[in-house]
């Protein structure tokens, strides 16, 4: 009954229909890089095609690869009962797994202008934003300020606190997912403020990137998540 892990991984390596699949007799999931729903150049001039390509094909791919490796090592460590080894792997899992989670959300948070990127949110999310932040401009201003103030690498988020039923703006360091700031937080919009997200185009001027990124934010996706979580 045992399927040889190595053999099955190699045959399935070429397939990319799903973003995860079961492999091997242990049932370890292997993750793959999700495709972008738009061309690399489709978010210009807000974000350059060059950045999108490197960001997706290099940075996100590296997180996926390293996450898979860490999971494999974790599986071995767990099965051998090696607690030190398990603990030692935690930072690699948090970092790379977090990187995969965050970037997967990020690509969906963005859309070309001609597909609705930048169009203000309507419906229940739109009203909730007005209620909590006064207006969309108020939210944008707050998120841009907090994003600019992140020291080093991290993310700025618009999240929904499922329990308290309110919108929150928060930041996370490095690749920490929003859930590390609160178990009931659901990410609606995340903006990557690592230097790799903007450097080739905006250099050291992060506030300029933050000013422009709103032009390609996909509020339709955020609204879908919001409505789903609120029902």
């Amino acid at each position: 009954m045992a399927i040889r892990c190595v053999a099955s991984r190699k045959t399935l390596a070429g397939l990319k229909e799903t973003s995860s699949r079961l492999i091997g007799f242990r049932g370890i999931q292997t993750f793959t890089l999700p495709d972008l729903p738009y061309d690399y150049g489709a978010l210009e001039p807000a974000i350059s095609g060059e950045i999108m390509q490197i960001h997706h094909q290099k940075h996100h791919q590296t997180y996926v690869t390293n996450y898979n490796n860490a999971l494999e090592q974790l599986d071995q460590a767990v099965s051998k009962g090696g607690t030190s080894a398990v603990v030692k792997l935690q930072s690699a899992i948090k970092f790379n797994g977090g990187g995969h989670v965050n970037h997967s959300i990020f690509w969906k948070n963005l859309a070309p202008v001609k597909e609705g990127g930048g169009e203000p949110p309507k419906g229940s999310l739109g009203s909730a934003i007005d209620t909590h932040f006064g207006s969309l401009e108020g939210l944008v201003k707050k998120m841009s300020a907090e994003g600019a103030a992140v020291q080093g690498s991290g993310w700025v988020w618009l999240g929904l606190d499922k329990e308290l039923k309110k919108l929150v703006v928060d930041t996370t360091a490095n690749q920490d997912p929003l859930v590390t700031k609160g178990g009931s937080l659901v990410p609606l919009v995340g903006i990557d403020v690592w230097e790799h997200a903007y450097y080739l185009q905006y250099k050291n001027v992060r506030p300029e990137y933050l000013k422009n990124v709103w032009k390609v934010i996909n509020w339709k996706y955020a609204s879908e998540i919001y409505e789903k979580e609120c029902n």
Partner: protein
Amino acid sequence: MMTVAVTAISSPLLLHSQGPNRQLLQWKRNEKRRLPTKVAGSGVITAGFELKPPPYSLDALEPHMSRETLDYHWGKHYRTYIENLNKQIVGTDLDALSLEEVVLLSYNRGNMLPAFNNAAQAWNHEFFWESIQPGGGGKPTGELLRLIERDFGSFEEFLERFKSAAASNFGSGWTWLAYKANRLEVANAVNPLPKEEDKKLVIVKTPNAVNPLVWDYSPLLTIDTWEHAYYLDFENRRAEYINTFMEKLVSWETVNTRLEAAMVRATQREQEGTYTEEEANPDDEEPEVYLDSDIDVSEVD
């Protein structure tokens, strides 16, 4: 003549830094104090750290580190830290101190004050420009090599560990080679009976703006692994940047000089036994501080 010493400024922070564990400043003697004498048009006195240019021209490290990188890294990032630091500290207790003093005070035992980020980043970058040179790379020699071989097994082993540390420092930060004297392996504990063998070379990874000064280590070498340090030249390929840094850029001469100074300092501190209230000044040269008569500065008692 008035002398200004750390203890002169009455701030609650200072009380923590007095006593036997007070850190002796490492770069004070070589660093001129800034002179708060610039007067803006309105007659307001503005103090200010000045931009320190690297000891080579901005294109001198080509092709290993491009001019473009240095134009942004030195001309924008570093400049912004200095300018913002000046704005933050003007007119405060941190004004008229050396950069190292500002770093140590604003670290505030880990509960960093707002000025820490800018001060430490300014210090780190100055240290970084001086850690590299045109025609750098190669191998260390002399006492430095001996200690590397003693503490890491071999130069190759050290190289492997240093590069691995720099590559695995997630997010923004710095990787250091530092000389650690008198400290035990446990947090802040000071070694009560320091011996030669206790003084070690260590590799340290720090996040964001933190540097090993705050743990009373003597930094010898640093590599900046914030993405802005390598992105224009290497994109995401940090490992390649680290290799280039070690093979073509690192200034072992500078590292050696810093090690010599660190060892001298460590010996001095041991000989002194207890720490004095004011910093020991063996040559008896008072730091030159020329102050406007208008400025009210607390005097050492």
